């Protein structure tokens, strides 16, 4: 799942750092993701994993790193093995 997330981050987050080189815990906002880009990433994740983030997860923390996104998806029942 981490690799799927990484691909979506590369597509939507608009970081100015190569996402391939960004660690799982690397801060995406610090890597140049704007707030508008974080919305695009959120929508991209929802479409790719066919989920809807509940309102309490619509915070910067949820989308701050690849591992934070993985954790949120895990909590939404998106299996790590998927």
């Amino acid at each position: 799942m981490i690799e799927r997330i990484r691909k979506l981050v590369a597509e939507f987050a608009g970081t100015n750092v190569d996402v391939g080189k960004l660690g799982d815990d690397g801060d995406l906002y610090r890597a140049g993701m704007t707030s508008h880009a974080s919305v695009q990433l959120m929508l991209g994740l929802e479409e790719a994993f066919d989920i809807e983030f509940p309102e309490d997860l619509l915070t910067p923390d949820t989308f701050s790193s690849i591992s934070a996104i993985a954790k949120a998806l895990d909590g939404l029942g998106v299996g790590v093995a998927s």
Partner: protein
Amino acid sequence: MSETPSLLRRLIDAGLFIDTGAPGLYGRSGAFEDVIDRIDAAFVRAAGDDVTEVVRFPPGMNRGVFEKSGYLKSFPQLAGTVHAFCGAHGDHMELLEHLAAGEDWMAKQQPTEVVLTPAACYPLYPVVAARGPLAPEGGLFDLQSYCFRHEPSEDPARMQMFRMHEMVRLGDPDQVLAFRAQWLERGQALVASLELPFSLDLANDPFFGRGGKLMAAGQRAQQLKFELLVPIHSEEHPTACFSFNYHQDHFGLTWDLKTAAGEVAHTACVGIGLERVAIALFNQHGLNAADWPAGVRKALWG
């Protein structure tokens, strides 16, 4: 009926507001406008010795500039676009027939190059960017404009067309944040001199939709927006009379605004809602400005 009439009703009955039939769109009396002028002057006085460049734009802005500004990403629900009849003679006849029959006559209305200005500072950034990099001391501008937001309401403090006076700072992050910190103090001092109860709070813009929830949470987490709130119709939901906004490099990147050092410029603006402050004054001190407390009259009329 013993029920207290609404503030809107009282403003209209006192002749301060003139009902136009459209919610959030009011005429203003001379007495009301005198207060607006005085608040406007007090806001400029609060800037002290600041050397500002005064710029005025009409309440409509270039649609291309508006489109590029990013406003539609965040607030599509608030924008107002200007449309005009672009048909031929036959279309005109048709328009008049539809109009006479009370039917939809808008079919041949086309978008113009004009969008209603949503905030006084929006037209400024590309104009400054076109001049080239900022001077080492950055830029400081004084803007005032009627603004439009599509949010029809019976709350007189939530109008669709209202005036906003803004000071806008462009420069490096330190310059811009120092400006905002200074105005947080100036704003509170001004409202205190008007003997209005107020509080200062972290705030977020009314971003649209589910994505907007994330935008709003991010804006709060980064403390990008503060509001100076005055209770008008409710203690629980006080009304924002000033906002203090740090845009980071949003407009700098959008318009390729550069500092003297060649970095992307950061920007901030402080805005006062002139009608909101006036309404807060009438609500707090009474509908006849001649009867306001001496301190308030002195702060405004000198």
